[in-house]
């Protein structure tokens, strides 16, 4: 039976089978988006039939616990280094499916060099990038992705862009690199968006299975505790304030002709000095 098929119809409700790759109930805070993203990854890997040949590269932050809840061969990485670790795994095991699961503090701050260069090399890995705009594990400090004006424990007067800079749109930045075959941003803000995000995650893994290159799905997520909101309020903030700042969509799917309308670095194109 494939995942997503209804197990039973009862009292007008459709009940779906729990993916076998989800090994344990998660211990994340109420209203945290990690549980949803874990499930989407588990469903997609089962749907593609590759759970048994997949290697998870963990990261540091709340996402470090992914290997406790996903029944996959897994390796831990130092903070931010998951794309380098995944590069090592994939280069010696090119026939395996390799993905990193990273938060925004891990990927967009301390790990910027590793993510950029893994993407630039077009490593045949998939990156699941869960962006909740905050350091959750350490108590809600400002991250590079924290919105302008957002209060955190290390920006108590709100993020001041004059001294603390602007939010870093990592996925858009990576979209410029020709090694990036697939890049999309989804969200867990409502069931429809969750469904689209699931499709994006599936596409990202397909791109790896087709040996095309680097693929990344950023998933906008919540941190009710870090944001100082109830789970319901956090979901509302995600749907409005956060998604206004970070548009969802597919930025790159080169096999399907979706790519930024910018000259590809290194490829022949009209000189950018014209009219300069």
């Amino acid at each position, binding site marked *: 039976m494939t995942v997503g098929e209804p197990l039973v119809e009862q009292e007008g409700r459709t009940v779906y089978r729990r993916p076998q790759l989800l090994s344990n109930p998660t211990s994340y805070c109420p209203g945290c988006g990690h549980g949803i993203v874990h499930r989407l990854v588990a469903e997609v890997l089962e749907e593609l039939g590759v759970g048994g040949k997949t290697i998870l590269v963990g990261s540091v932050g709340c996402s470090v616990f992914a290997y406790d809840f996903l029944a996959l061969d897994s390796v831990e990485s130092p903070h931010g280094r998951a794309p380098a670790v995944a590069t090592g*795994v994939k280069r*010696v095991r090119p026939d395996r499916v390799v993905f990193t699961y990273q938060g925004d503090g891990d990927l967009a701050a301390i790990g910027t060099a590793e993510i950029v260069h893994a993407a630039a090399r077009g490593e045949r890995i998939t990156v699941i990038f869960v962006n909740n705009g905050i350091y959750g594990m350490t108590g809600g400090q400002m991250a590079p992705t924290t919105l302008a004006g957002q209060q955190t424990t290390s920006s108590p007067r709100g993020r001041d862009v004059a001294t603390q800079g602007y939010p870093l749109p990592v996925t858009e930045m990576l979209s410029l690199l020709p090694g990036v075959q697939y890049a999309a941003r989804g969200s867990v803000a409502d069931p429809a968006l969750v469904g689209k995000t699931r499709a994006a995650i599936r596409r990202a893994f397909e791109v790896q299975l087709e040996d095309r290159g680097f693929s990344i799905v950023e998933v906008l997520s919540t941190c009710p505790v870090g944001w100082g909101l109830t789970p319901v309020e956090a979901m509302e903030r995600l749907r409005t304030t956060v998604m206004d700042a970070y548009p969802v969509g597919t930025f790159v799917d080169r096999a399907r002709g979706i790519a930024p309308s910018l000259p590809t670095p290194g490829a022949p194109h009209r000189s950018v000095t014209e009219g300069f």
Partner: protein
Amino acid sequence: MTALDRRADSRDGSVAPARSDAGARRVDRVLMKGNEAIAEAAIAVGCDAYFGYPITPQAELLEWMARRMPEEGRVFVQAESELAAINMALGASAAGARVLVSSSSPGISLMAEAMSYMAGSRLPVVLVNVMRGGPGLGSIGAAQGDYLQATKGHGHGDYHVPVLAPSSIAEAIDLVRDAFILAERYRTPVMILADGILGQAMEPVAPAFRTLERQRPDWALEGAEGRPPRVLKSLHLRPEDLEEQDLALQRVYDEIRRSEQRWAGERLDDPDIVLVAYGSAARVARTAVERLREDGVGAGLFRPITLWPFPSEPLRHVARGARAVLAVEMSAGQLVEDVRLAIEGALPVSLHGRMGGMVPSPDGVVEAARRALSTGGEDGR
């Protein structure tokens, strides 16, 4: 089947012989730079993957691998930093590959983080440090200022890595193979501590690079098809769990201390003074020992090959009848600390150290030895 599978399935893990060993062009001796010889030795051993970043004085090692690894159908990646290089090694090792990484002092500092993770996650790797002058950017000259960093843990947390110190290029070739044996036997990172002289000098070596058998590790990641998942990690949040892991690691270190101490001695028959030195400094010390002997001074050389575990008991034993011990090093007094710990105050221990890329001269060592015998232990830098 991947390249890794094929090599894992071959009975002895042998690889094509090094080119210089190939029948028609067979030669007895070839001239090789230390960096190149270390690289070729690793290829012969069956190194599956190499990750590196350019830094003097080890760049030839990276360049050799850039050319040779693809010829052998193996993995070479020039990383964006030493941080990335060692973490690529972490990943490749977790997947069961035999991995070599090399750098020089400043780059080795950057690798300390991942080395700690690898020690905690029980991941084998061989890391070559071709030491240069420090601190900071220092110089590109040969130095031994990373002794304490290498032998006392390198990164954070309670761990050690076995450290092997060659003093010739021929010995470096042998120690590369030994390093992989130790790494896999004990599931630990192993460091080869060389210096800029060993890396850059050319010496004639017999091109008989040896292979190394391989067994598919039963802990490596390959996808959990048909078995419970494997998790390679160093995180254990419950103190009880972490202490249990740490104790297990310490038991491994105890076994390494018991079984793997190595050293070499020269002219240690009834010495008045024992010179202790490793790497390039040991070659200067050897010349000084010969001169002292010609002058009728009973000098001998004790050369630790494993810097961790330090061969304390053998040193204590050979120095028993001596009047003084002199540590000769290209650093400010790092090796001498282990020498003093080994001697336990039984004899005066003094230091002759040069720094910054300066190499001790035989005359300087002879003078320091005479001073040590007459004054009973005055440090000279």
